[in-house]
């Protein structure tokens, strides 16, 4: 089971990449734990999560092939 994780803005900078793949994460809560283990530099960063481009603010199950985007506060315009 592959979950693609996309990083944007400051998180892409902190992760030093735009994208990575996680395996065997059943939901977004589990993903967050793994993210903070793999990227301790995210500790001070706030972000919201989109699963397949839909924003979610609660724990969301993940399936093979899901794309999870980590979105820091927006600053367009």
């Amino acid at each position, binding site marked *: 089971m592959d979950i693609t994780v996309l990083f*944007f*803005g*400051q998180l892409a900078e902190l992760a030093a990449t735009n994208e990575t793949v996680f395996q065997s994460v059943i939901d977004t809560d589990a993903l967050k734990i793994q993210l903070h283990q793999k990227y301790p530099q995210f500790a001070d960063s706030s972000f919201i999560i989109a699963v397949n481009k839909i924003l979610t603010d609660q724990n969301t199950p993940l399936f093979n092939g899901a794309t999870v*985007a980590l*979105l820091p506060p927006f600053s*367009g315009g």
Partner: protein
Amino acid sequence: MAEKSVKNIFTQGAIEPVFISDSIAKHSSKTNIGAHSIFLGQVRKDVIDGKDVVAIDYTTYEEMALEKMHEIREAVFAKYPLACMHIRHSLGKVDAGKICLFVFTSSAHRKVAIEACEEVVEKIKAELPVWGKEIFEDDTHQWKENK
């Protein structure tokens, strides 16, 4: 979701004033229009901790941003009797003093054009997944946050 009508709104670099005048000129054949409202965002040379911002470098989650912009557009057209709406947002580096956002609404009457334009600007600022990196004169940077 009507994928086929999702329009691009992104432009590499600054939005040139001539793009804006061309866009205005194209509306002279739409003689049901009585009022245009235009908002332009311009990159400010803010001074932060004693250093000048010389540019903002914009990035986006393009696929999601275009879908979100499509939703915003549909919602605003459903709410207001608009004749047209045109949006451009810069990506990449835009120097201080240059235009980074162009929102253009047109209607028969002024109230509709003005209110719709303001609403679109607010939604773009709040809802579009776009990030601006403020670049200082010494090549350091910080990440912008919308108020």
